[in-house]
C-alpha cells in the first residue's frame, strides 16, 4: 500500500474533486474463459451459401433475418468468424452510416437494490464489496456530465440501482434532466428500473430522450438469473418507453450460462421490441454475486456474437458496454469493425474502463467519425 495516500483528510469534506486515474491493463483472464458449445462441422460451400443468403437479405432485400437464419449463422465454425464480422460491418455501414455514438454513464445512486439480478454487485441480497450510497447531489451529477462532454460524447445516461423510481426519485430525476441538458448540451438518458405508465409519461414530458431498460437475456433463461421480477415486467416497461415517445435502449448481457439458442431467442425478442439502441454487455464476474465465479466469454466468441447481434439487429445503435475490456482485450478495435457503432466512454457504473483518449484514438485510427449532437465532429 505504499502507493496509497490520503488527501482532503477531513471526513465529510465535500469539496474533493474526483480523482482521475490511469488504468494499466493486464491480462488477468488469459487461458480462463467460458467453455463454448460444440458446433457441427459445416462444409465451406454450405458456410458460404449461408453468408451469401444473409448478405442478400440484409443488403439487397433490406429485410431482417429470421431466427432460423440467425441460428444457421451462429453454427458457423470459428474460421468463419472473420467473414461474419466483415458482413456485419458492411451491414452496419449500409443501415446506420459511419458515425460512432459516444456516451458517458453515471451511477447516480449506487447499491442497495432490492432485486436479485445474479450478475449485479449492487444487489442488497449479496455480500459484495460495493457499499450502498445515496443519490449524488446535483453538482456531482453535473460534473460527471461535464467529464462526459469533455470526452467528446453526445449522450449522458443517469443510472440508478432501484427496482423502479419512487416519487422522490422521480422528482430528483426530473429536476436533473433539464439541468444537465442546459449546462452541457448533452442528450440525457435515464435508467431507473421498472416504470408505470404514468412514470413513463412524466419522463417523456420531462425531456428524457432515451430510457434504458435491458432485457439482459432471453425469456427462457431469465428465471435462472433473476427471481424478484419477471422478464415480462421488463418487456412491459420497454413497451411503455416506446408508447410514450422515448427512444428505447434495451441491452443484453452475454455469458451468464445461456445457450446459443437462447441468444438467438433474445435476438428475435429484441427484433420484436424494435429498440433504438442495444448496449451489448459481456459478463464481468463480480465478487460476492451468484455469478462471481463465472468465467468471461472468450474474445473470439465475443466477436462472433457482436457480429450476430448486428446481423440480427441491423438498424440499431449497437453499443459496446460493460465487460469489453475484460472480454475482448486486444480485440476491442476488431469489435468496431464487426458491427459495433457506439461505445460507453470512460468508466462504467461500479467498475473502471480504459481512458477516453484510448477509445478516441482507436476511432481515429479506424477512420470512424464521432457522432455529435448536431452533426459530426
Amino acid at each position: 500500500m505504499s502507493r496509497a495516500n490520503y488527501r482532503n483528510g477531513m471526513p465529510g469534506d465535500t469539496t474533493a474533486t474526483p480523482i482521475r486515474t490511469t488504468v494499466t491493463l493486464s491480462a488477468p483472464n488469459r487461458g480462463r474463459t467460458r467453455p463454448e458449445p460444440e458446433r457441427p462441422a459445416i462444409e465451406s460451400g454450405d458456410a458460404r451459401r449461408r453468408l451469401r443468403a444473409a448478405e442478400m437479405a440484409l443488403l439487397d432485400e433490406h429485410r431482417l433475418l429470421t431466427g432460423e437464419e440467425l441460428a444457421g449463422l451462429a453454427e458457423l465454425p470459428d474460421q468463419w468468424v472473420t467473414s461474419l464480422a466483415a458482413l456485419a460491418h458492411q451491414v452496419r455501414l449500409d443501415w446506420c452510416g459511419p458515425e460512432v455514438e459516444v456516451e458517458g454513464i453515471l451511477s447516480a445512486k449506487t447499491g442497495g437494490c432490492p432485486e436479485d439480478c445474479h450478475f449485479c454487485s449492487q444487489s442488497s441480497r449479496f455480500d459484495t464489496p460495493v457499499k450502498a450510497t445515496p443519490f449524488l447531489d446535483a453538482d456531482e451529477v453535473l460534473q460527471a456530465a461535464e467529464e462526459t462532454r469533455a470526452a467528446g460524447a453526445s449522450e449522458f445516461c443517469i443510472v440508478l440501482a432501484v427496482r423502479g423510481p419512487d416519487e422522490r426519485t422521480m422528482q430528483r430525476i426530473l429536476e436533473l434532466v433539464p439541468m444537465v441538458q442546459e449546462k452541457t448540451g448533452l442528450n440525457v438518458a435515464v435508467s431507473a428500473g421498472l416504470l408505470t405508465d404514468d412514470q413513463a409519461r412524466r419522463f417523456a414530458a420531462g425531456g428524457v430522450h432515451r430510457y434504458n431498460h435491458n432485457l439482459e437475456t432471453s425469456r427462457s433463461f431469465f428465471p435462472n438469473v433473476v427471481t424478484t421480477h419477471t422478464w415480462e415486467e421488463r418487456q412491459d416497461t420497454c413497451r411503455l418507453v416506446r408508447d410514450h415517445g422515448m427512444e428505447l435502449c434495451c441491452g443484453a448481457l452475454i455469458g451468464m450460462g445461456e445457450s446459443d439458442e437462447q441468444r438467438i431467442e433474445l435476438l428475435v425478442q429484441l427484433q420484436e421490441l424494435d429498440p433504438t439502441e442495444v448496449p451489448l454487455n459481456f459478463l464481468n464476474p463480480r465478487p460476492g454475486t451468484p455469478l462471481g465465479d463465472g468465467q468471461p466469454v472468450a474474445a473470439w466468441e465475443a466477436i462472433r456474437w457482436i457480429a450476430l447481434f448486428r446481423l440480427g439487429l441491423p438498424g440499431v445503435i449497437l453499443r459496446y458496454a460493460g465487460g469489453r475490456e475484460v472480454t475482448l482485450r486486444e480485440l476491442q478495435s476488431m469489435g468496431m469493425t464487426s458491427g459495433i457503432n457506439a461505445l460507453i466512454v470512460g468508466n462504467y457504473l461500479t467498475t473502471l474502463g480504459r481512458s477516453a483518449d484510448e477509445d478516441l484514438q482507436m476511432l481515429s485510427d479506424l477512420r470512424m467519425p464521432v457522432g455529435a449532437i448536431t452533426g459530426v465532429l
Partner: protein
Amino acid sequence: MTGESTAKVAFCTGCGSMSASCPGCGRTLDPPRFCPTCGRRLTVAVTPGGYRARCREHGDLALD
C-alpha cells in the same frame, strides 16, 4: 482518526482482508472498495473520468 497501531496494518483494497497483497484481488479495472488503513468499506463514486473513494474515518483515498 484511528490509532497508530491500526494505521500500520495494510488491508487489501479489493476484499478488505488483512493483507496488502491478497491473491486474486489484483483487479485492475476495479476502484478500491476497502480502506487500506482500517479495512472499512469505502464510499465510492465512479464517474466517467475517474472515481472518488472515501473512508468515513480516513477521508478521501488517492491512488497515484
